[in-house]
């Protein structure tokens, strides 16, 4: 990805950052450009496409040809920014009406096979692939994962739930209970926290990684032993953006089997190994373990507070724009290069002189007049981690809340969209 990025730069003399876009709907082509470093958000891109093709009220699917010539969908921020960042040299967009979409064509190199003439592709990529029919990848995003398998005892499982990859509720309940541990003194009953219920259709249930009566041992690296149910609840909720729970599954049959011990065994044979490895004496993670799963990453991942900044001192619109551009260029956190999916700027800062509360004094006029001129500069990190989407989401919420305010008609003015890629001026 980096390579293509670097290569494209000398080619494009005029705008170093711009990616040329060729968009095709039916037989019509449109050409425009987006900023490679800051492609913006899918929603805006979608509106732009609609606007450019004048197909505002149509249900369409947007796809693009990737480097391999595959037709891939663009339907969220992630794959949009992926499409922009990998465009080489130009981004080819295909717009299909919803009802005409040939889903089977997505995800395979159908473009190569069918439309060699249309989409010029390198020959070496023109190879046959097994045609697997897979579902429409509406929204590729992680919702859960098992992590730290290599450092945990086999009887334990560390599950990470990505709350913001999903609209689903986390959807589980915990309760107090009693756990039996094996100690040198013999069996010992200790209080423990257990998963008590799964909400049908919730994230926890749908991942299949957590089950009722699993004992919760840790929450984001902190042991729960000695903590009350309420404390553990608060800890989980406080970490709900990026919840990592270490559980001792009640069902020890499905444990991950270490290849070193059992080679070539089928799933069933893990049964014995699972129960064999149990009972484990009270698991206490060493510091190394805690450090092992990268608190820092998770930390920076999760809480990025949104700051909406009103440029208080500049009432004129023109200067506002220039200022905001400046702000974004020397923003405290430069956009991370596309190749670093994990790290992202600590906060999403959008500068907008919007919705300054009407002053009740004589200045009301003044502020009202420029209140309507608002520019929203969305500085978008290229690679979306799970929580970026959340912040975008909240931005949208803010935007939509603005729209509900009758005095602030924030509907997109037709023709007001300028696609300079970086600043979307509303």
């Amino acid at each position, binding site marked *: 990805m980096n390579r293509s990025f670097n290569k494209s730069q000398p080619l494009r003399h005029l705008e170093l950052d711009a990616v040329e876009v060729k968009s095709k709907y039916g037989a019509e082509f449109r050409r425009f450009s987006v900023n490679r470093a800051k492609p913006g958000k899918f929603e805006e891109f979608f509106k732009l496409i609609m606007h450019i093709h004048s197909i505002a009220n149509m249900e369409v699917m947007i796809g693009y040809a990737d480097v391999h010539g595959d037709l891939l969908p663009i339907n969220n921020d992630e794959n949009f920014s992926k499409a922009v960042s990998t465009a080489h040299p130009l981004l080819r967009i295909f717009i299909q009406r919803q009802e005409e979409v040939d889903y089977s064509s997505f995800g395979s190199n159908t473009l190569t096979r069918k439309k060699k003439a249309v989409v010029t592709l390198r020959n070496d990529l023109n190879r046959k692939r097994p045609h697997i029919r897979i579902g429409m990848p509406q929204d590729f995003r992680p919702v859960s994962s098992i992590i730290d398998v290599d450092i945990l005892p086999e009887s334990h499982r560390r599950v990470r739930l990505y709350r913001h990859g999903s609209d689903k509720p986390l959807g589980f309940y915990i*309760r107090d209970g009693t756990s*039996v541990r094996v100690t040198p003194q013999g069996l010992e009953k200790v209080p423990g926290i257990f998963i008590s219920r799964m909400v049908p259709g919730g994230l926890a249930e749908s991942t299949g990684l957590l089950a009722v009566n699993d*004992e919760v041992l840790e929450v984001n690296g902190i042991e729960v032993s000695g903590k009350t149910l*309420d404390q553990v609840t608060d*800890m989980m909720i406080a970490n709900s953006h990026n919840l990592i729970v270490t559980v001792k599954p009640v069902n020890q049959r499905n444990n991950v089997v270490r290849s070193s011990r059992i080679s070539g065994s089928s799933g069933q044979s893990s049964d014995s190994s699972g129960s064999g490895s149990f009972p484990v004496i009270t698991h206490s993670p060493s510091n190394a373990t805690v450090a092992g799963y990268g608190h820092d990453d998770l930390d920076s991942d999760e809480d990025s507070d949104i700051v909406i900044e*009103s440029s*208080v001192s500049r009432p004129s619109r023109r200067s506002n724009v220039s200022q905001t551009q400046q702000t974004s260029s020397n923003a405290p956190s430069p956009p991370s290069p596309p190749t670093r999916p994990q790290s992202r700027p600590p906060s999403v800062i959008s500068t907008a002189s919007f919705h300054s509360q009407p*002053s009740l004094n004589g200045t009301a006029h003044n502020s009202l007049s420029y209140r309507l001129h608002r520019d929203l500069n969305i500085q978008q990190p290229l690679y979306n981690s799970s929580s970026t989407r959340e912040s975008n989401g909240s931005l949208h919420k803010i935007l939509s809340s603005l729209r509900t305010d009758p005095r602030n008609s924030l509907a997109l003015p037709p023709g007001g969209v300028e696609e300079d890629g970086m600043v979307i001026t509303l």
Partner: protein
Amino acid sequence: MMKFRFRRQGNDPQREKIKQDLFAFNKTVEHGFPNQPSALAYDPKLQLMAIGTKSGAIKVYGAPGVEFTGLHRETATVTQLYFLHGQGRILSLLDDNTLHLWEIGQKEHCSQLEEVRGFTLPGRPGIESTNATRVTVLLPKLSCDLLVVGTEGGGVHFLELPSFTLQNKSLFQDEIMQSSVPEEYKCGKSLGPVESLQEHPQLPDKILIGYSRGLVVLWDLQNRHADNVFLGKQQLESLVWVRTADSFVSSHSDGGYMVWSVSSSTPCTHEPVTATIPYGPFPCKAVNKILWRTTESGAPLVLFSGGMPRASYGDRHCLTILQDSQHVTLDFTSRVIDFFTIHCTDRDKEYDDPSALVVLLEEELVVIDLQTAGWPTIPAPYLAPLHSSAITCSYHISNVPVKLWERVVSAGLQQCPLQTHTNWPIRGGKNLAPDPKQHELLLTGHEDGTVRFWDASGVSLRPLYRLSTANIFQTECDHNDSLTQAGEEEWPPFRKVGCFDPYSDDPRLGIQKICLCKYSGKLVVAGTAGQVVVLYLCDDKSDHMIDVATVDLLQDREGFTWKGHDRLPPKSGSVLFAPGFQAVVLVQCMPPAAVTAVTLHAEWNLIAFGTSHGFGLFDYHRRSPVLARCTLHPNDSLAMEGPLSRVKSLKKSLRQSFRRIRKSRVSGKKRVLVSSPSSKVQEANAQLAEQDAEVTPVQRRIEPRSADDSLSGVVRCLCFADTFLRDGTHHGPTMWAGTNSGCVYAYALDVPSQEKFSEQGVEALLGKEIQLMHRAPVVSIAVLDGRGNPLPEPYEVSRDLAKAPDMQGSHSVLIASEEQFKVFMLPKVSAKTKFKLTAHEGCRVRKVALVNFSSVASEDYSENGLVCLTNLGDIHIFSIPALRPQMRYDCIRKEDISGIASCVFTKTGQGFYLISPSEYERFSLSARVITEPLCQVEVDRPHDPSELSICTTLPPQANGTHKTPSGENKSAGDAEGVFDEMQSPLSSPALDSPNSSADITLDTTGELTMEDVKDFLVTVDEAENNLRNMTEEDGRPPGILIN
């Protein structure tokens, strides 16, 4: 990661030393009136008064500043208290029928109260049930070597003091019956329990024994012989000797009293000299206690409690003072617990000549001056009834300027001019505490719309001034005064005494938030009906109109209908104000929801206020609103319905939940009688029941907060600061507001200079809007200067009272939410440091304050810290702006949500919280700033030969009367060896603090925030849901997991 930080710090011995010099946690003193007092005693020689409570606490008071507390290990009601005359020893009887001996001991030149011994009267083997040995009354002889014990079974036992050795010469009823009582009086009935024991005023070997049935015996201890028998026929309540010893007085359950003459010539008296039913002839309630005091001037003074006509005044709590033709019926608002007179006890003097009457009521202490005509009350320097109307909020101001202090004190003096010149009559002990270096004010807001100013500089919390905000509103109860006036002409001659008045005229008057500028004497008080009152301190009385302004916080947000209460209508026309704080401006929020945050900047003439709907900014100098902002989330449909209707239902369901809790507690805590075989069974049953309760599992739903949680618009905190919001070079006035949904609004204010205040208005422009990703409610916002210190208060710099803040370095803003603390750099609002308390510790922030800790080691070394109280009741101290954890202390029980909600911190590292509706516990987090009783009582007592050396190792009862479970456990364990006479079943494990058994009513829970309510309800609701779910889920046994 945090773990590492902790560790690194812990390893640095130098830092540890500094921390030791800065921080120390102590619960120092309890202010206010003891909750649920149950016993009273007075020692005329030492001039000390002792009060026992239902929670097993003993509090001893002398001169102002002299106080000791002791706490029985059992949480049992102290039913009776007695001083051993002049010895500094106190005898207590608990309702579990145990006797305890306490001593005022010396420790490092200060006196302390310690328990030395316990005793339980053994049952009489065979015939009698345990009830028979239940102690009803005690009499420690004046000589202090003998304790006479009367029991339910009518027996009288003799114990040697101070060893509690039972003398083998108990006197049982049969002996009296057989030897002295005429046949016709016996009629086969027992004499009933011993009701009263009184020592003969002149002959120490003779005691008067009164039995419930009415029989009174003058018993000669030496000769074991009944000198006189008085055949009373009315059920006896109490006895008192007349000083001359030629007669005594008995009071009875029919509301009457009788005077009996004692003469050696007639061993058997059938009829009293006089019998009076003062409030007859209709049936009267019992006269519980009577005192008869002779005076030099002639007629004796008769004081008795009760005896009111049953039908018309049976519900009144009265105490009657009779002397000649003078008759006053003191009409109290709460039950009379006990009373005594302070009189001459010198045996050489001929008369009692009482100087004062001290009445302990359930809710306050009243002292009457008996030497001044008209019997006026003497204001008490301590035991202030904080809860005369329920406390709804509290606010502390440290380092009050002398000027303001004097003006407040003088306003208070003009408010209630002293009716009497008698000094406080209880003057025992010596206060050793140095005079406080600075004045401290504690302001309490009350449900009736008053704000009370208390002198919190020292150990005794002294009332200074009372401010009422009710007079600027039209309330329905204005005409009530005239009605009560008319009633006072009637007979009996009632006189209302005391200030405890739990009935609020109008709940809307309740004070929610207070803010005072100590330099300009400007005060802002905000209440339940959205009223924000600006008051100026003025030394002259004034008659003026109040400027009223209404601020619409909804800002034409549509689809909203307010279903709560109306706003309070302000009085039209001018209002007369006494010297003191006088209302000048009234701002009313619309809708009139309770004000949830208020702040004042007197230098800029601005106030900011917030409710559950939004916040507003008001220029009180120009009387003009500057800003109003709605914080309601558009999706918050519940808020749209009007939060107060919800609040009501919340309140209701909360009350129900409390009731449920209380019920369960009562059943769980039922006291089992000691050493009875049946109690073992009960105990086992109780345990089984408890286990049953544990079987039903409690579930908690794990779900992140969403943007449209209800009540997300509640404004939680507001602050003014002169800082950098627009850019890094120009600082200026700013205003910050934080909401329940984790949103922070920062406004840049354009405040005209002092000269232009009148012509130019203040402008506010939204500068920043910060949405915390974790969406937890914002508890506090503070701006730190370039050196990381909190900004000084208004006027502090311009009056040279504080160092100017560093305006060179970059400022930062500290935002404390319920879950995290974060420091952001200004003006960019980029995150600098953070501490995720909830994610790490599982506790949520309830109260925070920025505190300056000064070191004990060096006068001029101090550090600023962030102090935080969590929902678990523990206190954390963090450094700022690094947010490194420094200390953690357990402070309040986590179940005590009203205690946690009422906590306030001072700027110098102390704090207050309510341990009962009427008591503040004062605690100190600073190693240097500690306000605790230091006092000494000179006692002269013979050495107790049986005293055990181990006694001196008893840990001091520094933690006051409300035990913390862990600490108490330990001390109980240490002290185990001391009480060798106690039976083992007595040493029950540490019990909860008395609050758990005390009634928890919502009305007195102080500033209980919606969050507390919500938290509670969520758990309750969930518990209910969980239960439902459990039953739905095919009753799977929730279980013990063995795999």
